């Protein structure tokens, strides 16, 4: 793994030279230079960039797909998707109706791609499954201690968490979200939901009238160069009366749907953060199950949004879940969120907990921070968006699971009444269910997100973090978010990076192998695996427009600048098999040139209770 700053100069010269030939960064038509450099061509083989009907290797290949019908198809087996499935089946048995609910999930097993802190507020769970305790839900660690601090390089300044502040965690549980999602999956299967882990939804299908007809799962048996192998099999089509999309933060199908139905016409663009997490087994003497610690400040400067969490879990062994979140609107291209995370662990107050311990897991995932201002239109003919895909995270609380679950439940309730209505006359073949959006606006999710809507944008001031904290203290704690104005975000995260020449490089300390680690060994811990010959889940439109800091945008060493075989200059190498599906490259790339697409199903990280 080459540290981005060391090679940046050479790589920059290489990209700079190419840019001088090209007029301006826009459409790929300006690509007279594309054919000249063989090392830089064909960096993607995905069919969305090189269509199959023009590719001679695909001639004569059977492209017919097997299709099946369900009442509701749910894309994504996470908290939102599973809550929706459970709610649908609960209503079906309550009203004695038959309902076929299918959930497709790209992970090889339910929970394997789930990553979160996590501190769960049990409100939505208690509404969905009131007897969750008797059913053995893995909420084993109630929060007993709550600490919030501002870190400086050597010291820790505690900040009192007054009741009423969003980061007050009384009544919540520290969970391993992957295990919780797995338990939800078991509850869903008991109710008769058809769960299909290992099958990714790769395409949205449309009726002739433009409404959503369902989804198609990915084709299997494609070689790395994009040609069909002997074992090539077409994916399957799942048709439904309504399709719920719960792909999590920055879902790739949702990305298509936003354009198709113009769902983001009336809201601000979504803004994101990247969350990095590790699980450690620590020395028993340092273990205090139920202790919740959050910090802001060092090592980030006051204008870079971010902070840390450290939760002591009560799951049999002395386990802590710790992690670091960095807002993806950071401006310095030299900033590496992964290295900030590793550096943060060396703070004296954190090191004292981790010393003598052992790291057992690593993972990363983007999360949304847009909140209220970025909520798109949630329903369209034939489908609805649920969970972190549209994005309902309460940013100051750093909790999005309870709102995701509730949104799934609301979608299920509105869908159920429409589907089972025998007198329904629908204008479109796919059902259009505006009742979901109405129910959503009347629900506690809306009220909650409205009250905290100004906290995240309040960081965009000269004093950065401190200005934001003052704002939160006055307007949230005293006024509970009732101020009449709504602050705006700063625009797309992808537009925030300043040119490298205007920023100072950051000197990161080398990982010591005991507390801090390098990226490659961390990837190994995430259990990531894709069939190497078939990993092609990054469709890159124009390789010339990829920027340098891209090395820091992957949290699993996907993008690497390696020296050219001829010796002079560098070339971009994409190690797609390392991808942990965090979606950050798709979000942060300044030229918005990267389109993340699903790999063959069941590839990706193998998180166990992250």
């Amino acid at each position, binding site marked *: 793994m080459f540290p981005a700053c060391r090679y940046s100069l050479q790589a920059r010269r290489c990209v700079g030279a190419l840019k001088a030939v090209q007029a301006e960064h826009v459409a790929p038509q300006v690509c007279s230079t594309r054919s000249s450099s063989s090392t830089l061509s064909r960096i993607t083989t995905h069919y969305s960039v090189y269509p199959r009907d023009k590719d001679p290797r695909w001639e004569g290949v059977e492209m017919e797909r097997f299709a099946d019908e369900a009442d509701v198809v749910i894309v994504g087996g996470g908290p939102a998707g599973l809550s929706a499935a459970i709610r649908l089946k609960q209503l079906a048995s309550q009203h004695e109706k038959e309902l076929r609910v299918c959930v497709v999930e790209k992970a090889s097993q339910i929970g394997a791609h789930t990553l979160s802190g996590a501190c769960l507020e049990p409100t939505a769970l208690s509404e969905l499954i009131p007897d969750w305790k008797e059913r053995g839900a893995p909420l084993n660690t109630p929060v007993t201690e709550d600490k919030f601090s501002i870190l400086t390089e050597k010291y820790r300044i505690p900040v009192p968490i007054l009741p009423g502040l969003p980061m007050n965690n009384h009544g919540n549980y520290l969970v391993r979200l992957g295990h919780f999602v797995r338990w939800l999956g078991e509850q869903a299967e008991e109710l008769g939901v058809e769960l299909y882990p290992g099958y990714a939804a790769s395409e949205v299908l449309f009726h002739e009238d433009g409404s959503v007809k369902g989804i198609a799962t990915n084709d*299997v048996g494609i070689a790395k160069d994009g040609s069909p192998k*002997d074992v090539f099999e077409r994916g399957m089509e799942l048709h439904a009366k309504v399709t719920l999309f719960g792909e999590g933060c920055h879902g790739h199908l949702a990305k298509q749907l936003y354009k198709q139905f113009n769902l983001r016409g009336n809201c601000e663009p979504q803004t994101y953060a990247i969350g990095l997490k590790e699980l450690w087994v620590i020395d028993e003497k340092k273990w205090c199950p139920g202790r919740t610690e959050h910090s802001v400040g060092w090592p980030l400067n006051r204008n870079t949004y971010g902070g840390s969490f450290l939760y002591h879990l009560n799951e049999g062994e002395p386990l802590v879940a710790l992690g670091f979140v960095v807002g993806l609107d950071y401006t310095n291209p030299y900033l590496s969120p992964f290295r900030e995370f590793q550096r943060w662990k060396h703070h004296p107050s954190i090191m004292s907990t981790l010393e003598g311990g052992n790291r057992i897991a690593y993972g990363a995932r983007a999360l949304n921070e847009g909140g209220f201002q970025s909520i798109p239109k949630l329903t369209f003919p034939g489908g609805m968006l649920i969970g972190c895909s549209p994005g309902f995270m309460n940013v100051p609380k750093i909790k999005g699971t309870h709102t995701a679950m509730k949104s799934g439940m609301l979608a299920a309730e509105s869908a159920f009444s429409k589907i089972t209505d025998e007198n329904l006359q629908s204008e479109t073949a796919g059902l259009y269910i505006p009742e979901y959006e109405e129910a959503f606006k009347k629900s506690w999710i809306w009220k909650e997100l409205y009250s905290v809507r100004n906290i995240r944008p309040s960081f965009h001031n000269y004093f950065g973090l401190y200005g934001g904290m003052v704002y939160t203290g006055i307007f949230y704690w005293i006024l509970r978010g009732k101020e009449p104005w709504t602050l705006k975000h700063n625009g797309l995260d992808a537009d925030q990076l300043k040119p490298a020449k205007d920023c100072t490089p950051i000197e990161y300390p080398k990982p010591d192998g005991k507390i801090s680690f390098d990226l490659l060994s961390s990837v190994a811990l995430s259990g990531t695996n894709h069939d190497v010959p078939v990993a092609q889940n990054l469709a890159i439109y124009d390789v010339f427009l990829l920027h340098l800091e891209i090395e820091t945008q992957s949290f699993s060493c996907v993008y690497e600048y390696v020296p050219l075989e001829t010796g002079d200059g560098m070339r971009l190498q994409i190690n797609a098999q390392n991808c942990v599906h965090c979606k950050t490259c798709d979000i942060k790339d300044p030229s918005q040139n990267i389109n993340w697409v699903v790999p063959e199903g069941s590839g990706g990280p193998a998180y166990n209770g992250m």
Partner: protein
Amino acid sequence: CFAPFLCLRPPQIRVKPDRTGVVTDGVKHSMNPFCEIAVEEAVKLKEKKLVKEVVAVSCGPQQVQETIRTALAMGADRGIHVEVSGKDYETLGPLQVSKIFAALAKKEQADLIILGKQAIDDDCNQTGQMTAALLDWPTLAFSSEDVTLEADKLKVVREIDGGLETIKINLPAVVTADLRLNTPRYATLPNIMKAKKKKITNVKPADLGVDVSSRLEVLKVDEPPQRQSGVKVETVHDLVEKLKEAGRI
């Protein structure tokens, strides 16, 4: 009749804190890759109309049913789940499994048993051979090219150290599959859905008259020792000095 195993898929195996084994809770279990190849071979034989029925067998706890479903999705006709769970499952080894298979083979009147040459969790490479011994059937291990029937003898090519060996054996027989035998097909979603309708019968080892208690006791499981970092030396002289220092010469 043949048998895919339930086994651990690497990576990231951790030793349990009490040192009695590895952590299996939450780790993805899937069909042993060599057994996948065995299933594929059996399905191919059925497609060539050389066998009438393919039965997939697996021994283990409830999760094993998923693996059997995958085999059914690949083309097996029905499944048999031999229920072994808890402590018995942790100590289940090749000897117990081969006793179970031998008993099942007699009960189902199977003519051919195909299994993977070894499981990737314990790498024992014993079950196929032991099963054949218990049944007094011929074994053909490490088959690497298509299994064919020639005048009711089984003809198979197998990989040996010196090259490839072609053998004809009488039926009934046991064949174990090696890596290059075939490329298993994907269990596509429509086939998984169809497989839900195929039958899986549950059997207990006691019903087959098999005692699954182990004759082995695991005393300790440890992680391999951390690799020590090396030292680069500049000259041959330094190398000799270092070796002398370490007492090696």
